């Protein structure tokens, strides 16, 4: 673990890099765009522009967003003293890739087709290495404990053919790893962020499971340990009307994600808004560290802002491409 005093260079550089983030003016111009080509033209004038120029298909944007995020991660890796700080952010992409590859193998065994196009280059593990390890079933050299998690997932699927159980194991591995990495660096804000992510994921899961009609005992396996709020407390929410969830969790910061829950007409509407509330809550968790010029948490803050920006761009471009109401799109924008 590096000393916080070692972060002077990194934090300053990130402060300068923040100037490259999209500002409200760009979001407004995107919202004012008539169609997707004009929105993409706006994007080509931003930091994403160079990636749009390299694209062969003019009407796609996902490769450009991915390239920009990858560029930011690669750049950040060069000067951040503790690798755990950016690995925490790249882990979900590793898990995503593992899920894609495992599902591809399972589908192939059932006569379906693999979807390698869904793989992302944003993970810690190079895609080629991951494909090689999983397809050859040679898991020995997989990092982050995946050499145990992946064969366990394959074994579970072979016994049950239940893909949800496989997803659950991989998600649990993701959150355990994030918390382990946060504990390794031992910076207060990093630990808080990792635990808050578990809390928000649990709340998201409870809302979805309640909508699907699950009861408390059925929901238990879908909740993850390691958050600030005990799993039992979050599990109990499923038996309560969603209007009272904020009050029940009022002792915890994560209740901010549910502020205004009682104003929603139904659970579907709450779930749509919950995605934005969760992202805004995680931004809030990290925002307090931006006032310290040497806090390592500023690395997380910047990477989170970049991830949130990418989400905003996706929401806007997909919405504009599908002719969505601009007022709806504006409501879905996260605070950056």
């Amino acid at each position, binding site marked *: 673990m590096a000393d916080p*005093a070692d972060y*002077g*260079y990194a934090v300053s550089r990130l402060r300068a890099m923040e100037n490259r983030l999209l500002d409200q003016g760009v979001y407004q111009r995107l919202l004012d765009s008539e169609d997707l080509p004009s929105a993409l033209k706006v994007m080509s004038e931003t930091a994403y522009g160079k990636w749009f120029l390299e694209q062969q298909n003019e009407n796609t944007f996902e490769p450009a967003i991915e390239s920009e995020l990858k560029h930011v991660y690669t750049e950040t890796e060069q000067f951040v003293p503790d690798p755990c700080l950016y690995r925490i952010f790249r882990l979900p992409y590793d898990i995503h890739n593992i899920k894609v590859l495992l599902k591809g193998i399972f589908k192939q065994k059932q006569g379906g087709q693999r979807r390698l196009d869904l793989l992302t280059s944003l993970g810690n593990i190079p895609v080629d290495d991951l494909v090689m390890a999983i397809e050859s079933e040679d898991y020995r050299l997989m990092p982050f404990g995946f050499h145990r998690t992946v064969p366990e997932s394959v074994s579970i699927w072979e016994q049950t053919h239940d893909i949800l159980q496989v997803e659950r194991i991989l998600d649990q591995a993701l959150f355990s790893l994030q918390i382990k990495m946060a504990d390794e660096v031992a910076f207060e804000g990093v630990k808080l962020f990792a635990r808050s992510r578990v809390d928000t994921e649990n709340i998201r899961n409870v809302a979805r499971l309640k909508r699907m009609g699950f009861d408390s005992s059925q929901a238990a396996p879908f909740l993850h340990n390691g958050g600030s709020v005990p799993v039992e407390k979050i599990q109990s929410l499923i038996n309560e009307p969603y209007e009272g969830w904020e009050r029940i969790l009022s002792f915890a910061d994560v209740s901010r994600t549910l502020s205004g829950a009682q104003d929603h007409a139904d659970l579907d509407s709450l779930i749509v808004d919950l995605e934005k509330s969760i992202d805004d809550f995680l931004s809030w968790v990290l925002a307090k560290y931006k006032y310290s010029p040497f806090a390592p948490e500023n690395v997380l803050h910047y990477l989170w802002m970049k991830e949130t920006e990418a989400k905003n761009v996706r929401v806007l471009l997909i919405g504009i491409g599908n002719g969505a109401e601009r007022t709806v799109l504006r409501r879905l924008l996260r605070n950056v």
Partner: protein
Amino acid sequence: MDQLGIMLAVLGAALAAGFSGSGSAIGVGIAGESGAGIMTEDPGKFGLVLLLQALPGTQGIYGLLTAFFAILKVGLLGGAVVSVNVWQGLGVLFACLPIAIAGYYSAIAQGKTSAASIQMIAKRPEETGKAVILPAMVETYAVLALLMSIILLNSIQI
């Protein structure tokens, strides 16, 4: 005993220059790290960054100035060496302490404030004036310490 008096005065001068210089080196280093971070992204801010990085360097100059006064007082810098008894030597040593101590700590504090100000101008270059004032406030206490050291040195009769 004259030798001991002289040695105490020299020790005072060494502490004044040494501690203040060390503090300045640390402070300038802290601000420099921040400055390098900003300039990697925006080399055009070199002028502003240099100004803010130089601020914690003044304590080193104050320490050096005090050290000169101290050794001048005992005649080690030109002219004949004067007779200095132990109490006079101790007086010179104590007179050097304000700038030695305040110089060391204020330079580090100023370095941190300068680093924060450098980060401020990275995002808001139009606020450069305010960014310079904040670390300059820390300078006040180094100047007060310098004044006290000089007054004390002048008040010692040799």
